[in-house]
């Protein structure tokens, strides 16, 4: 169990952020993260033998599969998106500005293709480089760079008001 605890601590930010990046509210993102780690726990004998990049790729793939299954099982999944669910707020009481920032980021992400959301979350939230992102998402490094280039300007237009020099900072 101790091994699994440290595995959880090393990867929980990754899994939770990827779930949020899919447009889920905080509760649904936590449920999806929990389900992903439950699968990891069931397969931990295999997972612990893998190197960390392969472990992360496994987690991301599992999360994607679970998210797709959930979506297929319930078309009502759209109710969980940030557009309709007022309970999307962070679980703890953050400031209104923090909450609005999260909404704006999730809104900006929702305008991207699914694969681009994953790339962007890994790059800008977890600060992975193109090689690490490529390994995790099983994409060529050049594809990651190309996708990032396309997303960068698009995101900047929507989010830079929140940047250090922005009006909302």
């Amino acid at each position, binding site marked *: *169990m101790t091994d*699994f605890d440290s595995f*959880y601590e090393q990867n*929980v*930010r990754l899994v*939770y*952020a990827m779930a*949020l*990046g899919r447009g889920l509210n*905080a509760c649904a993102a*936590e449920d999806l*993260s*929990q389900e992903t*780690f*439950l699968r990891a*726990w*069931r397969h931990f004998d295999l997972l612990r033998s893998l190197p960390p990049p392969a472990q992360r790729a496994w987690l991301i793939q599992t999360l994607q599969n679970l998210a797709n299954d959930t979506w297929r099982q319930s078309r009502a999944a759209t109710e969980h998106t940030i557009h309709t669910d007022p309970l999307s707020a*962070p*679980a*703890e009481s*953050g400031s209104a500005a*923090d909450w609005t*920032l*999260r909404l*704006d*980021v*999730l809104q900006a992400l929702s305008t991207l293709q699914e694969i681009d959301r994953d790339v*962007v*979350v890994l*790059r*800008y*939230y977890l*600060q992975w480089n193109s090689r690490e992102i490529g390994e995790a998402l099983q994409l060529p490094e050049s594809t990651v760079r190309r996708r990032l*280039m396309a997303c*960068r*300007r698009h*995101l*900047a237009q929507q*989010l*830079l008001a*929140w*940047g*250090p020099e922005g009006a909302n900072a």
Partner: protein
Amino acid sequence: MNDETLDLALEGVFQKALTPGAAEMAAMQIRMAARLQQEQQDWTTFTAVMLNLNTCLQSVQYCLNRSAHLLKPVRG
């Protein structure tokens, strides 16, 4: 604004927006631990049921073997 500056600015925005608070993380960890404990209990219960079932089957098999032995016609 060049790409490098944009990247830095976006990193700051994403970090601030998506980083869960300490309380949020702690609550998630507690709920995860409870879920794993439940999973372990389910597995223990399942294993216990299977062991009992196995014991029952062995008993039935023993009885059948004994019955077959007793019912075997005696030659001679």
